[in-house]
């Protein structure tokens, strides 16, 4: 299991993607530093919430996870190296969990750190808000990893599918249909951050309850992991 994890992490981290991701996760930190040294009229709470909500949770988190998680299987399907794993005495669920974990660690951990550092820099009064942001982003990263890893295995158009989910479903439709918050990883993430620290994202419309956000995240994680295992077990390996 460790071998598949290390192999996948090297595959994901060893490319130019890593530099792109490092650049993306540095943006909020950079914005926070500029805010601190500058003479802004915005309160620190409001700035931290805006950056978390509009930049990190709405753009960087889903895009980075989309990039990494769809490649966890996608690369091996394209270059036909998946057989080297499929032809080994390893249960399929172990392959899936290892790849998902690699996508989560390589993509999710830098984002969570970025969120943590950003809020810590902006709001230097304590670590509660920073920790809540980091933990909420980690949960969101896990859910996105499961969803996009599955997409990378079932379709060659996983990137497109992911972009539609992120920008059409979660961003556009959610503005008109309130019920979408129950089926949106972004809303789970933001609601979890708010649950962990009530002072953060206080202006969030209709946040989900702690139980709702946790259950939603867990269901996405479990359901798409199970679907990925099922697909890998039944598919013809190229």
């Amino acid at each position, binding site marked *: 299991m*460790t*071998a*598949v994890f290390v*192999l996948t992490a090297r*595959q994901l981290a060893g490319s130019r993607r890593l530099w792109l991701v490092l650049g993306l996760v540095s943006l909020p930190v950079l914005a926070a530093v500029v805010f601190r040294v500058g003479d802004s009229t915005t309160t620190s709470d409001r700035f931290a919430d805006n950056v978390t909500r509009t930049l990190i949770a709405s753009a960087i988190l889903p895009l980075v996870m989309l990039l990494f998680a769809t490649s966890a299987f996608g690369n091996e399907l394209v*270059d036909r*190296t998946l057989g080297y794993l499929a*032809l080994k*005495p390893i249960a399929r669920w172990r392959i899936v969990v290892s790849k998902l974990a690699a996508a989560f660690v390589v993509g999710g951990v830098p984002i969570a750190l970025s969120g943590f550092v950003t809020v810590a820099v902006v709001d230097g009064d304590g670590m509660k808000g920073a920790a809540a942001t980091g933990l909420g982003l980690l949960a969101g990263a896990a859910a996105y990893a499961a969803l996009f890893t599955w997409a990378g295995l079932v379709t060659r158009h996983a990137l497109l599918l992911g972009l539609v989910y992120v920008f059409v479903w979660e961003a556009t439709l959610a503005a008109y249909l309130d019920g979408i918050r129950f089926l949106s990883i972004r809303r789970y993430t933001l609601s979890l951050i708010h649950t962990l620290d009530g002072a953060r994202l206080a202006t969030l419309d209709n946040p989900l309850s702690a139980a709702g956000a946790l259950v939603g995240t867990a269901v996405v994680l479990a359901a798409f992991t199970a679907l990925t295992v099922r697909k890998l077990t039944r598919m*013809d390996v190229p």
Partner: protein
Amino acid sequence: MTGVARPTVVVDGVSKWFAGVVAVSDVSLVIEPGVTALLGPNGAGKTTLLRAIGGLTAPSQGTVTVFGENVRRNPGLYRRIGYMPEHESVYDFLTGREFVELAARLQGLDDRDRAVRRAIEIVDLDADQDRRLKTYSRGMRQRTRLAATLVHEPELLVLDEPLSGTDPAQRLHLRDVVRGLAAEGRTILVSSHILEEVDELADRIHLMVSGKLAASGDYRAIRQKLDDRPFVVRVDCVDPRRLAAGLVGIEAVESVEITGTVGLRVRSRDVASLQRSLPVVARELGVRLTRVEPLDDSLESVFEYLATGTGA
């Protein structure tokens, strides 16, 4: 492993089709210890059949058992199987040694160092094992993939076009490796589209054409069938009708067809005799030959003949 010959692989009525295209059609065969070659032209269905045997694809119809078990959804069986796919893709960012080591780890081997060292020695890659795979030649990649395939000393080795991309010296070496592994009692199934390539390598040959099993036997039996097939030769000359009249009298000629104002298609089962007789007859009749060319010497036409009894 035992010295007693027993079927390692049983393919029973296997067919595989993709979106209406039949890749393998009702193939039944048994693979026993020793070296067996699956021979056929490109597109004959060899790789699809091997992939079904390796569990990479599910047959549309029929069953495949390996060591008496269904190989699909049975990952534990891969401890006894080594499968080398046809395509040359590897993890380019790994070194040769890391690639073989990865295979050893995924196999859960206890003494990985020894196994990796042995596998690399077998394919003679010691000197280059620490270079990244992206710097390897095609032949070196083949050898590395073979090392990774046999690192866990499997009882069944399935090698899809293992000699592809290798130079003559590497080919001889790999042939010796395969023969050596077979001598240890393993079952080795190799595919190739070149008959001569499997000469001295395989004990048995299964010939596939157009998704079907066309012939089975040892190298000599297959070679004999090839030699017995009729050849079709195109002959261009200034007076084809006169030459055709002369050629039908030759015993080696089976039939003559006039194909235009200057062309003939001559069918013969004794090409050597035709080669000797044709210029003699043409000279006697005063017909000038402008072109003599075998029409069906391609491997595909040879296989086609064996499958259907008709050539080009």
